[in-house]
């Protein structure tokens, strides 16, 4: 484990969650992508803490994180997209939400025919998960099932 990773672990342990350890996965899931991209349906999963005005904002819970997710309708007005996440600088996202949730850029790729379609519902987490169990066992599998239900061919994960 690199020095930077160890330092981050120590900071989280000292400030918020003494038991925190990075999860180290031992294998990667993989399916070859053979579909014609111009006929494929994509989805975005951001960890930028993006939510739609009117939805409950994410909460930091005094440094314990928030394993919940929000559903972001494809055609939600850009000005209605908010973001809450205490662990990154929001300067760029305040100017252009596409830096953390590239919805307009994906729409551009649909328009020019690069990809076939975009999911009607995209997803957002707050990418600070020092207690990963509820994310791993409940909310992430739930989102995966919803993506399957939308017949999505690929998902782009955008950590911040």
């Amino acid at each position, binding site marked *: 484990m690199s020095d930077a990773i160890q330092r981050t672990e120590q900071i989280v342990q000292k400030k918020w969650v003494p038991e925190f350890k990075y999860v180290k996965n031992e294998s990667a899931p993989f399916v070859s992508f053979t579909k014609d991209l111009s006929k494929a349906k994509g989805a975005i999963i951001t960890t930028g803490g993006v939510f739609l005005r009117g939805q409950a904002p994410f909460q930091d819970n005094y440094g314990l994180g928030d394993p919940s997710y929000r559903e972001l309708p494809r055609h939600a007005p850009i000005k209605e997209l908010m973001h809450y996440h205490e662990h990154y600088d929001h300067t760029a996202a305040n100017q252009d939400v596409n830096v953390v949730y590239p919805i307009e850029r994906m729409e551009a790729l649909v328009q020019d025919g690069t990809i076939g379609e975009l999911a009607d519902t995209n997803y957002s987490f707050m990418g600070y998960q020092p207690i990963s169990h509820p994310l791993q066992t409940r909310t992430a599998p739930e989102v995966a099932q919803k993506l399957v239900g939308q017949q999505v061919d690929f998902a782009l994960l*955008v950590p911040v």
Partner: protein
Amino acid sequence: MITLVKEVAELVLAPRSLYVRHPFGSPMGRAGEAEKQIQVLKHALALLTSAEHGGVIIDSGLHY
């Protein structure tokens, strides 16, 4: 997956990771630079279709 930190991508082992030299808070690039943000997406899509095994981490060569 877009990744800002190679070491984190090595821990996560997503099916495919695209490394970009962008700062925390701006994984897709600078605010308002639509063409460059689309370039990141095109690199990610190229990796989607070209990867032959899971856990691959590709350096996009893209800078902020």
